[in-house]
């Protein structure tokens, strides 16, 4: 790649403005994520319409000043449902992804570094992977009722083996790195080596997996709802709104479009921020990026 352009490169300004100038995408992502989260938290203030209230007279209205995002089959205000839906969806997406990433990483690190654990743990993971989340959801829901907890658990458990395998794969290569040997030779406890020297090397694919899980959790929540083991369909979540719009796909596409846009924006921002996080953790990349 060319170095000539670097000949005349002015140093960028520092401070917040500098950050914006240097990282326009990151800033944009932060602002958008802030807006999405904010709109979910402040949903009741922003939209006066009750997301649950049914008014059959206003079935499938086009987006208008009255119904900003249109209305659904029961005449509920999609704008309000999407805003309120953010509360559940963001929680489900975030919690499922975080939990799956956490436990998966833990399992992957352990399996990648201890031969015996690898044998046992990864077989457990193979088994766990085979259990459909719907079945888990049915069982868990029956134990604790449909709640954030049951749904998050049902969604994240089958994801754990995936993360675990990914991390394990990375660990298998990273553990042969001389700097890991160097750390071992300094008698640093195993778990610290894993955290400090091995884990950062796994971040890149993990971040991708995370953003994927984040989105897919939100959609899975809808599938679970569709199958009767998610949140009650009257309770708005992006997934529920999208799932309910499914039958009206051709007739009232706005039922899917708006929650879809919110979901996409969130996924996009998570992706951008994830990319940035990865860069921060790898100084060599930041260096070559600045070129």
């Amino acid at each position: 790649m060319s170095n000539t352009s670097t000949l005349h490169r002015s140093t960028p300004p520092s401070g917040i403005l500098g950050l914006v100038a240097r990282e326009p995408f990151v800033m944009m992502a932060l602002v958008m994520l802030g807006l999405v989260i904010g709109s979910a938290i402040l949903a009741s203030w922003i939209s006066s319409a009750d997301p649950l209230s049914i008014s059959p007279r206003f079935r499938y209205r086009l987006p208008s000043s009255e119904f900003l995002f249109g209305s659904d089959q029961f005449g509920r205000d999609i704008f309000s449902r999407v805003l309120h839906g953010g509360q559940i969806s963001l929680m489900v997406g975030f919690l499922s992804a975080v939990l799956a990433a956490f436990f998966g990483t833990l399992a992957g690190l352990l399996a990648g570094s201890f031969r015996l654990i690898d044998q046992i743990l990864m077989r457990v993971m193979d088994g766990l992977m085979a259990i459909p989340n719907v079945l888990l959801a049915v069982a868990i829901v029956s134990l604790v009722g449909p709640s954030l907890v049951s749904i998050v658990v049902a969604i994240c458990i089958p994801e754990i083996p995936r993360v675990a395998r990914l991390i394990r794969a990375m660990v298998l290569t990273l553990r042969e790195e001389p700097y890991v040997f160097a750390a071992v030779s300094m008698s640093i406890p195993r778990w610290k080596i894993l955290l400090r020297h091995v884990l950062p090397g796994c971040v890149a694919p993990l971040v991708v997996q995370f953003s994927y899980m984040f989105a897919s959790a939100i959609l899975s929540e809808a599938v679970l709802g569709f199958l009767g083991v998610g949140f009650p369909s009257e309770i708005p979540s992006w997934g529920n709104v999208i799932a309910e719009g499914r039958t009206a796909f051709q007739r009232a596409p706005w039922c899917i479009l708006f929650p879809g846009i919110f979901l996409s924006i969130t996924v996009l921002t998570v992706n951008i921020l994830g990319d940035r996080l990865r860069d921060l953790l790898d100084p060599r990349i930041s260096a070559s990026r600045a070129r």
Partner: protein
Amino acid sequence: MARLIFTRLLAAIPVMLVVATFVFLLLRLSPGDPAIVIAGEHASQQQIESVRMALGLDQSLVVQYVLWMSQMASGDFGNSVLSRQPVLSLIADRLEPTLVLATVTIILTVLLAVPMGAIAAWNRDGWRDRVVMTFAVIGFSVPSFVIGYTLVLLLAINAKLLPVQGYVSPFADPWGSLRHVILPAITLSIVFMALISRVTRASILEILGEDFIRTARAKGGHEKRILWKHALPNAAVSIVTVIGLGIATLISGVVVTESVFNIPGLGRLTIDAIQGRDYPVVQGLILVFSFVYVLINLTIDIIYLIVDPRIRY
């Protein structure tokens, strides 16, 4: 290596045993039982009870478990409680569509996603990278039924190029089979392409920071070579992993796509069986899945050894 394969296959036995037990419990924990499903919505209590008795569901859990285990021990997966067909033949019937769909999807995905991810990494922050990112965001966040319906609307209904739905065996009609499977495969591959291209990009970026890339560059020749010959093989471990995981997903659960394109695959069988509380079918399916996963993961582990000679187990 022979040892690796042998021990893994051996290990599959306890895995399946544990999974079987776990699933047995999960199912019994779940409310609803096949008797209720069989008797139906309009059945009276007494009708339900008589069905329950006929199915042996009135026996204690332990008895049911022992019965099932002894059945399994003789290699008998039992019959569906609903349709009374042998579980294995039900699964076998659904296996082919699933495998065909998975194969086409994976080929499509890998052929496109890996180069896409690699080019995005190479073109970091350039327009190609942005295109791939946009694609990934769409792949992650657009529900597959939306993609499916849209494709059907455009290519099948409006353009009349392809059939709307259904499955045809490639052994009966290879061309027809491909025509049927192509839209669902595209639908599915969009999600996987998004994931795999992102992982490819991330891993390659990591590698591009390594010193040997400089050596490769010093050799001259076309720069792209560095991407394909040096960066990609070094990133292969994580890429192979995600591809493997993708295959696993394709085999067990692509219910939505199977539904949208009416493909009689394992995903739907699973959901139907769970919804119908068809205990033997669910148990049989999950056993099969866990065995298949052991195989897939074993294959991935063997591929690791090929793509990265440093890896030891």
